[in-house]
């Protein structure tokens, strides 16, 4: 009993280590959205407010995770190559000239999954492990970033 408990705690611990070491953020759309891939440049331009359409021509609404969330930091680091401070400076230029507002942000992976699944024009990102663990696979599609 004790041994089983210990090993399962150990297993959880290992899973956490492995999970965090291989933490990967994936880009998702609603399963109703036909988009299968985006180029890195398209993704960057959508999240920087320069592009407001999917390649199909449909309008896109990017969704952010809250600043300080791991997924937020990893997304901007891995896909846009920028730090949260750089992103903040970028949006300051647009906000204070009346040229745009940053994407709406949600609290965590679960809120992101719900928001994106509910809206065919939404584009979001979340931790890939959340996608595997939660039963959201049917509601979301992972977008390949080329």
């Amino acid at each position, binding site marked *: 009993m004790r041994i089983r408990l210990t090993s399962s705690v150990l297993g959880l611990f290992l899973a956490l280590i492995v999970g965090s070491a291989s933490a990967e953020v994936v880009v998702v759309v609603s399963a109703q959205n036909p988009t299968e891939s985006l*180029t890195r*440049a*398209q993704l*960057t*331009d959508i999240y920087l407010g*320069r*592009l*407001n*359409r999917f390649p199909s021509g449909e*309008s896109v609404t990017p969704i952010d995770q809250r*600043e*300080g969330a791991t997924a937020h930091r990893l997304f901007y680091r891995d896909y*846009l*190559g*920028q*730090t*949260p*401070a*750089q992103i*903040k*400076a*970028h949006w*300051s*230029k647009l*906000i*204070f*000239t*009346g*040229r745009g*507002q940053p994407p709406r942000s949600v609290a965590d992976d679960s809120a992101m999954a719900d928001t994106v699944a509910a809206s065919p024009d939404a584009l979001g990102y979340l931790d890939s492990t959340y996608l595997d663990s939660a039963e959201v696979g049917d509601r979301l599609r992972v977008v390949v970033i080329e």
Partner: protein
Amino acid sequence: MPVICHEVYLAVGVMSKTLGIAIAAVSLVYALIGQAQGAETPRLMLNGFGTLGIVHSDEDRADFTSNILVPRGAGHSSDWSAEVDSRLGLQLTAELTPRVSSVVQVIAEQQHNGKYMPELEWANVRFDVTPDLSLRAGRMVQSTFMSSEFRKVGYATPWIRPPLEVYRMIPVTNFDGFDASYRSRIGEVTHTLRGTYGQADAKFSGGEAKARQAWGVSSTLEWGAASLFGSYGGSRLSIEMAGVDTFFDAFRLYGPEGDAIADRYETHDKRFDIFSLGASYDPGDWFVMGEWARSNSRSIIGDLRGWYVTGGYRIGAVTPYMTVARASVTSNLSDPGLSPEWWWHPEALEGAEALNEALNTWLRASARQNTLSLGARWDFAPNMALTAQYDHIDIDGGSWGTLVNHQPGYEPGGTVNLFSLALDFVF
């Protein structure tokens, strides 16, 4: 008599207290907020930005200011001045419908009269005809240079302040009028074309500048980490300043020759135009950016040139950077003036010589200088950055550089060293 800051004349741009239409439109928009419907709109957002900065200058017989229209700065007025870069801005953005929005921005900073009364920087209503075509009316900021529209938001720029060598050419930022902005996309290149038309009044310590029929076009190309900018604009510029009319009227007493000199240099309804080019490349870990600009005034302000190049490297939260900049004047720095041999009467001759000397001192005083700036920005907290910057300004002989408030004993030319510290924030 013409012991007057030369550059105040550059107040081409833009600033006015006559905002009737804009304010009415904005009020209407805000009145409509309660009635608008929609899932995402109306949405009201309050944002702010600010800088708390101090500057030390080792030149104590003139002031260094970040805006040549203000009366006090670092050097003569204060050894360490908090008035050069400090400011607070508040902005209310209202998205009324998915297509109609409004921005009102108020900034408190040192004004032309040395006071800190908040001033309206932006107050306009925007209508998105399509997602890519928008029209605005009211008060807004000219996009003469690459960073013009957000030059007061220290957090959004790498420097403590935009390089004066270029940005001095348009010391006032906002104008009242209209603009149209059209965005198009060719492959992965985003192109934004903007056109503006309006007018501006700018007060400065000792006078007022008026720009009428002010128009401008600007074009921005963005492709991944690279961006290219170009703009061209013109206006009819008038500058009223105590003593200046008297000065040129004195030339007119000398007949046709004096009239020609007064016509050449005075600043009543003169055609002013400005052209600028800029580029930046920012792949993430480092950046480089530069701008070049020239303005022609057909007046005592002269024809100005300026450029700068800034580069920086990001090491974690710290970004060291370096800027080199040059301001120059391509119009004449001297004028033969009135021909003394025509004036045999001793008093007339003396007067002509004094006028000639004053005119030449003024022409030589125009800002010609090189600046080397070294700095580092530290993004130590979300929404906040601390920047330290050292500037070494090498002023050409005879020139007063971009300094203002020159005191008796000030020697033109020479070098000025500045040390600046600024805390920038946004919320």
